[in-house]
């Protein structure tokens, strides 16, 4: 059969009858995955776009979120991921620098760090929430209150600072993995050239290696921000609130978030149908935020990879 096909004009030798089946089946799987992604996007854009307006984005919710806008949730989400990034980005980049530039590959410490990073990425987000309660709020916050405020409750309760720190731990692996990939992609020649000219290792890292890795670091940070903006489980008990009459201004304030707003409108609303317009629009706002961030990261990375290849 195969021998017969080989003699046909134009038949490719490496294709058999099974190939058509496999190519079609596997192609259909890709189509199915992308179709579902498209359906989700279409449904949420279709259901939410009509409601999006400057007023919706810039005013506070009214009547339990059925009317009014989502400004406090946008503000809370941005502040949350901003504080998170201030912690996660430097720690993540430093860890990646250590792993790529200093660590003895294969040494027990290095293996432990890599294992810890991989496991940190796999810890369920709700467990991060429990950790935030047990460690940040009760242990750290409780200690601060006892030591500084004589036991009065300031830091020992849900607050934006604890939610941000919890998210920082959760997104740390994202920054580490992306940064390390960027560092590894820089040719060893560049480092050796710099060292040969008399630069110290530290000068080589800060002036030769890091500038080249900057787009990669940016990619990792953006992905972390996107991930943090969409997470709800870790902030459930560490600081998010459904409705606040004021914007958070102090580390111990609670905050509103887009993700939690979607969750509450979808599940806790007494009249789900009345909540639908604002629900779709809030989901669209959150989805738009994470998508723009992800697309930016993907484009930056694609450009870096293209440059490295050429």
């Amino acid at each position, binding site marked *: 059969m195969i021998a017969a096909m080989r003699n046909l004009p134009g038949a490719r030798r*490496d*294709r*058999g009858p*099974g*190939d058509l*089946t*496999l*190519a079609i089946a*596997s*192609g259909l*799987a*890709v189509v199915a*995955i992308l179709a*579902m*992604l498209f359906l*989700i996007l279409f449904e*949420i854009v279709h259901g939410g776009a009509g409601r999006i307006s400057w007023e919706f984005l810039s005013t506070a919710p009214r009547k339990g979120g059925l009317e009014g806008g989502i400004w406090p949730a946008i503000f809370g989400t941005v502040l949350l991921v901003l504080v998170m990034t201030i912690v996660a980005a*430097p720690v993540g980049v430093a*860890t990646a*620098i*250590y792993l790529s530039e200093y660590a003895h590959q294969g040494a027990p410490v290095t293996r432990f*760090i890599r*294992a*810890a990073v991989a*496991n*940190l*990425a*796999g*810890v*369920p*987000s*709700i*467990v991060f*929430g*429990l*950790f935030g*309660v*047990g*460690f940040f709020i009760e*242990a750290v916050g409780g200690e601060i209150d006892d030591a500084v405020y004589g036991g009065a409750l300031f830091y020992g309760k849900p607050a934006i600072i604890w939610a941000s720190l919890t998210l920082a731990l959760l997104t*740390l692996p994202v920054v580490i993995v992306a940064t390390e990939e960027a560092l590894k992609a820089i040719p060893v020649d560049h480092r050796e050239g710099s060292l040969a000219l008399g630069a*110290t290792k*530290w000068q080589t890292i800060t002036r030769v290696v890091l500038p080249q890795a900057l787009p990669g670091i940016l990619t990792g940070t953006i992905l972390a921000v*996107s991930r943090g903006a*969409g*997470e*709800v*489980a870790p902030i*459930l008990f560490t600081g998010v609130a459904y409705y606040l009459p004021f914007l958070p201004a102090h580390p111990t304030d609670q905050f509103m978030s887009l993700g939690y707003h*979607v*969750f509450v409108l*979808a*599940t806790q609303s007494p009249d789900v149908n009345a909540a639908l317009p604002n*629900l779709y629009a809030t*989901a669209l706002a959150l*989805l738009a935020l994470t*998508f723009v*961030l*992800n697309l930016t990261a*993907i484009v930056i990375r694609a450009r870096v990879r293209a440059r490295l290849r050429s």
Partner: protein
Amino acid sequence: MARSTASINRLTTARRRRWAEWIAEKAIMMTAMVAIISIILIFLFVGRKAMPVFTNERIRQTANVKEFFTRNGQSPDGKPAFVWQPISERPKYSFIPLIVGTFKATVVAMLVAAPLALLGAIYTTEYAPRRLREYIKPAIELLAGVPSVVLGFFALVVMASWIQKVFYFEMRLNAVVAGVALGLSIIPVVYTVAEDTLAAVPRALREASLALGATRAQTLLRVILPAALPGIFAGVILGFGRAIGETMIVLMASGNAAIVSWNLADSIRTMAATIAAELAEVVYGSAHYHTLFAIGALLFIVTFVINFIGDLIVSRLNARMRGGAE
């Protein structure tokens, strides 16, 4: 004279710089320990809150290991049964309904995600034109970027109705709805690992097979897939670990009824969703409070072991593939 002052100055600057560099390098090494310390702290502080179910006499009266894993109540028809009913005259804390619920959602998720992700990875590495490949991978990454609360919302508001229309389920929210939505969220995890592994199979293997006259399908099924099998398995395992711990999707789309049944049309309540739904309203320091942390600790240990196995397989495989390519 002036020259030597300058050179001394230069020397001290150099020394000072060396000091600054030394401190900076030490700081980086310390920072690199944050990941290890975090994992240990998570284990300690979640574990510490779970401990009273083993050690505290008052808590142990209602919440203890025997209570968690044996028939602690009655089903509606009066038979002994596993019951999760934390708010009742005699609180009942059996983990079994939650474990069964988690298992059902996860199995449905794997049935959806594993074949699609694996076939998708095969298409990307074996059949897709190079141009198309450059677009498929980022598109699937975009799916990974959809926040789980948005997937949960989509499952709850839209998908549940579709699935009910197709299968005529009595309950709108059930293991199938939650499982399919969960499957969507882990497709990128399984796909990425499977695709990486397939792409890393040494060219020599592929070319040797083709040179011997095998078709691409034969090469794929008998040479590449067997070589990549551990990696594909690892991808499935990592997806499994992700699905077990995923919270918002199941919290929104599963119906949250703690029922022990193997019927996929029944509502379910998972371990993660139980913590999310109940911790906010629980009395601080109560048996219920510590039981929720015990569920969290169990979840942490299970996912830790699963991820550990998955990563071990991936790193072994990577080492072998590199060895094979030389």
